């Protein structure tokens, strides 16, 4: 039996895809920092030095020190783990939830579809930061609360996307053929439909990961995310607000870290789209 292969893309980019490689290499750097942050960091991220407060960048402290004399570079390096793991965890859980809901609604249709789409449409009307604030205020301000909040805000749009793609695919001949030869619905969904929807889902998830970094750091900034003294980037920005005039270096470094990570996810997602789906570059 032949494996069903999707039609070849009409036009492939010649040579390497710059975006994709930029994204992959940046993400690799961040992943290494998240794994080995303590080893790489020049100082202990929580060691205070009250004789070196708010120091501008120098040879001893490449990005300067904060209001209690902690080394900013080390805090940013060690903080990678918080941001990256919150982003990846929420995208993973949202992926599981969104794909399951969307696939079930799209494949089975009927009442199931109407109930699921009803709930999705309902949740889509709550702006994601507002939903995240509501959930964070109930679930508590912590990395777990933050992950729950971001996951919850990603599931509805993702489910909607997957549902649309599954409805499209369910009309393909290979699905009809699978039904004819007596395959179970679960097998058709898992082995035939979802693999064909995978590119769309992966592209969406990598763009979502960038969003997760932005939402997570915004909540950290508002004091509803990871709590100090943990060196989460958004939380660091929230704590540095008062020193905006006195010591702008406190504000610049964490912001650049957030932007680079978001850029990495966005470039990765856009690059994947260019490679797999050249028609729909929006």
């Amino acid at each position, binding site marked *: 039996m032949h494996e069903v292969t999707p039609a070849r893309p009409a036009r492939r980019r010649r040579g390497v895809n710059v975006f994709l490689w930029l994204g992959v290499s940046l993400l690799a750097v961040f992943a290494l920092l998240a794994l080995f942050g303590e080893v790489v960091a020049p100082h202990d991220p929580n060691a205070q030095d009250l004789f070196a407060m708010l120091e501008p960048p120098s040879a001893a402290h490449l990005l300067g020190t904060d209001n209690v004399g902690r080394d900013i570079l080390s805090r940013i390096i060690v903080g990678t783990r918080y941001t990256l793991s919150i982003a990846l965890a929420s995208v993973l859980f949202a992926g599981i939830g969104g794909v399951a809901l969307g696939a079930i609604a799209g494949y089975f249709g009927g009442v199931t579809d109407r109930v699921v789409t*009803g*709930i999705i*449409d*309902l*949740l*889509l*009307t*709550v*702006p*994601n*930061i*507002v*939903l*995240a*604030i*509501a*959930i*964070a*205020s*109930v679930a508590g301000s912590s990395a777990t609360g933050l992950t729950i909040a971001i996951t919850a805000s990603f599931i509805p749009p993702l489910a909607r996307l997957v549902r649309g793609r599954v409805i499209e695919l369910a009309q393909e001949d290979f699905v009809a053929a699978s039904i004819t030869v007596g395959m179970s619905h679960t097998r058709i969904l898992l082995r035939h439909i979802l693999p064909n929807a995978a590119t769309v889902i992966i592209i969406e998830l990598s763009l979502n990961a*960038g969003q997760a970094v*932005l939402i997570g*750091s*915004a909540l950290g*900034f*508002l*004091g*509803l995310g990871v709590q100090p003294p943990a060196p989460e980037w*958004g939380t660091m*920005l929230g704590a540095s*607000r008062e020193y*905006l*005039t006195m010591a*702008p270096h406190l*504000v*610049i470094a*964490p*912001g650049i870290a*957030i*932007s*680079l990570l*978001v*850029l990495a996810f*966005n*470039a990765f997602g856009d690059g994947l789209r260019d490679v797999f789906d050249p028609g729909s*570059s*929006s």
Partner: protein
Amino acid sequence: MFRFLVKRFAMIPLVVLGVVTILFIIFKSVPGDEAAFVAGATATQEEIEAVRIRLGLDRPLAEQYLKHLAGLAVGDFGYSTTFRGNPLPHIVDRLPATVALTVSAIVLTILAGIPAGIVAAAFRNRWPDYLISFTVVGLLAVPNFWLGMLLIAFLSVNLGLLPSFGAAGPASLVIPTLALAARLIALVARMTRGVVIEELRKDYVRTARAKGLSHDGVLRGHVLRNVMIPTVTVIGLQTGYLLGGSVVIERLCAWPGIGDLMLTAVSVRDYTLVQAIALIFVVSFLVINIAVEIIYRFVNPRLRYA
């Protein structure tokens, strides 16, 4: 058009009912005794019980839920500890500031995003296009609150051009608007660029050129009619960002809108107020989306007759 409007507006109460129910469930699952919290830290057991009875918190959940719905129907959002009563009038007081911020962000998005996209498309693969596309990629990666902090540092602290926070006249609106609109401007510019390039490839453009119309003439006379469509699409899709982003930016700039009030409510655990404002955001979301669809039908006749 009329039938479409009736259908859309009829949906609002349904969606609101659903969202109210979800919020009710979320906030009833907050750990801790609500009555003790409302009564305050120094309250005696009798006082707590009195509060419990006064607010109906001793009743079964189903009854509390129905009472909550009945209250909402007449504009009573419940007991807010911040305002010692129905928070609605205080929310309404703060609403204009949020509307001013979001509307000016949309206006700026249109004024900056569309021209940027057109310029990028007209100079495709030359330096203005690279400059604009590079800026777009950057703006989509930058957190809006950080951009706001940088704008405050440069425009108000270093250069002294603008007030750094609060609401002191129209000048105070500049920094929050820029910070909030940056992402939308980038999205609109990118989509406009795509649409213009797409349109330029179409048959009618070739016909117009063959007739002897200049490149600029084709752009002005034919292609630009289509650029409102992506803008409207982006604003429709990004309503959630616009409203959610306003919460963060209002806090950053101490802009006295409902987003700032919501965060204050969270910090003092005034869940009635949090729920009320969340609901206002949902209704705003629905209204903006209906407006977007109406405009969409005006700028895109294909939809009107579909």
